[in-house]
């Protein structure tokens, strides 16, 4: 029997991103109605088609019910008690980063994402989003030389309206689900990426989402378009202050890959998870989907989900193009009273399409960690293949892990392979490592990262090291 108290202590490290930036913000009144939506659209000086898109989504949302099939337990969300637009006050037009409020720059500095010309990360372009607005995007000129567009979605609406009108809502329709409809009605900011034909994006692109205020939700919207034979690697990070109330985060991410294009989308999600008693934390209800439109196109999702009080997220691939490829690599770690219901949908529509799913769930404390995934082979998906592997690791004896794989094949000439396993860190394994001089917590962390190895190998290098550290921090004190 494992020394239970020891095993329980490994997730207690204080959350180091829990600070609040004291900054003057422009907030609109709480509540959600048509007028609020018109106000948001007006603030963003949007064209009529976008306002119509929002209003239509709102009408649909009003008729929809909040989904309960994931069986997540949380207090009823009062959608009228949320502020749908909150932006730090700053000058109307900012021509360079030097004009950004120093407090904001300092905030991102503290988060390890310096934005200023002197300090900015050299190998990755960053779009920094603070509450409802994008603060700054680095390396824009350099990227523009390659024809790459990387900016906030609000800006894209103004400057690249034809692309927005053509693609927005084509992967995740406004009526897709309750939270996607809500997002479509009220989305504020997010990132926009366009990679032109034949271009390999010269550096990784990254968005960093920061929720600062406690009473406003964050509803970001990201759209990435990779034209024929182009490729891009995109990273996403997120943190939020520690509040004892819950904050709603309902994002929509749409990816589109044309012939021979490839998009790699990596997330390290570290929203505030609430305290040990489950008070506070982010409700993370996210719809992420990629459309492999082109032949031989490829979309690869990798995610490390460690934060949020509740995670409800299924980054998916619609495999339309012949021989297109979808991938999903996920590590989800839950502790204390966190709940995660995450997985993917691989919808094989075109022939000879291929998908790979590798999911690693680690549950500690009293948390619930579920993998929920769908693999569907459509009637035309002849010669298609899927391989899924879902492994769960339990730490302590109060945590739970579930796997819900849904398989639906309408094509006899296709292959679906599913493997699943559950393990527990055994006392004998820990003793073996300890008896070789390895300290208890290091032993746990070695075993956890060993368990996640297949997924970490898929992450961009800096991200992989970060993820490893993050997991070790999160688990500190939960084992033993």
């Amino acid at each position: 029997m494992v020394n239970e108290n020891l095993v329980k202590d490994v997730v207690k490290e204080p959350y180091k991103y829990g600070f609040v930036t004291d900054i003057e913000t422009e907030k609109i009144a709480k509540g959600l109605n048509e007028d609020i939506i018109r106000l948001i659209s007006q603030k963003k000086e949007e064209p009529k088609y976008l306002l119509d898109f929002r209003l239509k989504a709102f009408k649909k949302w009003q008729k929809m019910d909040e989904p309960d099939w994931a069986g997540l337990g949380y207090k009823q969300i009062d959608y009228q008690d949320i502020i749908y637009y909150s932006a730090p006050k700053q000058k109307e037009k900012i021509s360079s980063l030097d004009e950004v409020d120093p407090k904001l720059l300092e905030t991102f500095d503290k988060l390890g994402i310096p934005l200023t010309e002197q300090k900015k990360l050299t190998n990755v372009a960053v779009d920094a989003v603070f509450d409802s607005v994008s603060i700054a995007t680095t390396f824009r000129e350099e990227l523009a030389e390659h024809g790459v567009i990387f900016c906030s979605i609000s800006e894209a609406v103004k400057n690249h309206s034809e692309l927005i009108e053509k693609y927005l809502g084509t992967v995740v329709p406004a009526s897709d689900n309750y939270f996607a409809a809500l997002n479509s009605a009220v989305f504020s900011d997010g990132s926009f990426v366009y990679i032109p034909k034949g271009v390999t994006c010269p550096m990784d692109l990254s968005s960093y989402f920061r929720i600062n205020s406690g009473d406003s939700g964050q509803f970001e919207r990201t759209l990435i378009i990779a034209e024929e034979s182009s490729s891009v690697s995109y990273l996403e990070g997120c943190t939020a202050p520690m509040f004892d109330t819950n904050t709603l985060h309902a994002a929509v991410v749409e990816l589109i890959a044309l012939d021979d294009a490839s998009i790699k989308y990596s997330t390290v999600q570290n929203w505030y998870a609430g305290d040990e008693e489950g008070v506070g934390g982010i409700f993370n209800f996210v719809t992420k989907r990629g459309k492999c439109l082109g032949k031989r196109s490829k979309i690869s999702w990798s995610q490390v989900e460690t934060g949020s009080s509740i995670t409800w997220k299924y980054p998916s691939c619609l495999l339309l193009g012949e021989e297109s490829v979808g991938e999903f690599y996920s590590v989800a770690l839950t502790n204390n009273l966190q709940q995660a219901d995450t997985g993917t949908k691989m919808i094989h529509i075109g022939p000879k399409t291929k998908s790979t799913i590798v999911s690693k769930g680690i549950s500690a404390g009293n948390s619930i960690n579920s993998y929920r995934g769908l693999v569907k082979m459509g009637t035309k998906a002849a010669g298609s293949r899927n391989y899924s592997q879902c492994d769960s690791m339990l730490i302590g004896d109060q945590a739970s892990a579930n796997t819900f794989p849904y398989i639906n094949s309408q094509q006899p000439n296709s292959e679906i392979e599913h493997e699943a396993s559950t393990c527990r860190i055994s006392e004998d394994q820990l003793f073996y490592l300890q008896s070789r001089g390895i300290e208890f917590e290091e032993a746990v962390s070695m075993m956890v990262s060993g368990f996640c190895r297949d997924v970490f190998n898929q992450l961009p290098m800096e991200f992989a090291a970060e993820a490893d550290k993050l997991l070790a921090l999160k688990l500190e004190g939960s084992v033993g």
Partner: protein
Amino acid sequence: MRESDPILEVENLFASTDNLPILKGVSLTVYPGEIHAIMGRNGCGKSTLSKIIAGHPSYDVTSGDIKFSGKNINSLEPEERSQSGIFLGFQYPIEIPGVSNLEFLRVSTNARRKFLNKEELDTFDFEELVKEKLELVKMDHAFLSRSVNQGFSGGEKKRNEILQMALLEPKIAILDETDSGLDIDALRIVASGIKKISNAKTGIILITHYQRLLDEIEPTYVHVMADGQIIKTGGSDLALELEKKGYEWTDNFVKET
């Protein structure tokens, strides 16, 4: 009289697991350069004794002391015991999926080196060291890139244990049935590895059922354990006698003090 101080002193040790007494007064003293063989039927407490010396958390020491280099170690964590020079070679080395054998060996070696105030080795220097030690147990370099013990045959697992012993250079090594499950060739490799690693400063405890290991490594003392006690101690000829007469012969022994 011996010139040096003992490495390990087990003094009238009583221990239990889940309130079930397993050790009922074991005493054993090991001096540098000595090889002690402990023999006895399954369930007599041999393996338990070795795990308790290494600090396994499932067993409670109810009375008695374990001293290492003169200091009581009852309250030390298993990792502290290892770092200070106690090595347990497991009877059934456990598989640890996902953890690379090479990385495991390096972290472990560095933990011991740190304790000895030696410089910790980076991946390149460690490669050099491990290559040399692999020779001792005739192991292929390919073992290093696999997960710890995963998919290893019985013999490979045991050789991996001796490799760890070679890297950690312990002051005392307790080898729990390291010979079981080995064919003749593997037994020779393992035995010669043990001999090369041990020297006049180290102590070795061999837990075994068979004479064949003791043919390769001659013990200074042979102890016979039964029902949680050492009931007889003798020289290497005791093992030979035991081999001839079987454990039934020892059933009538009363505990020798």
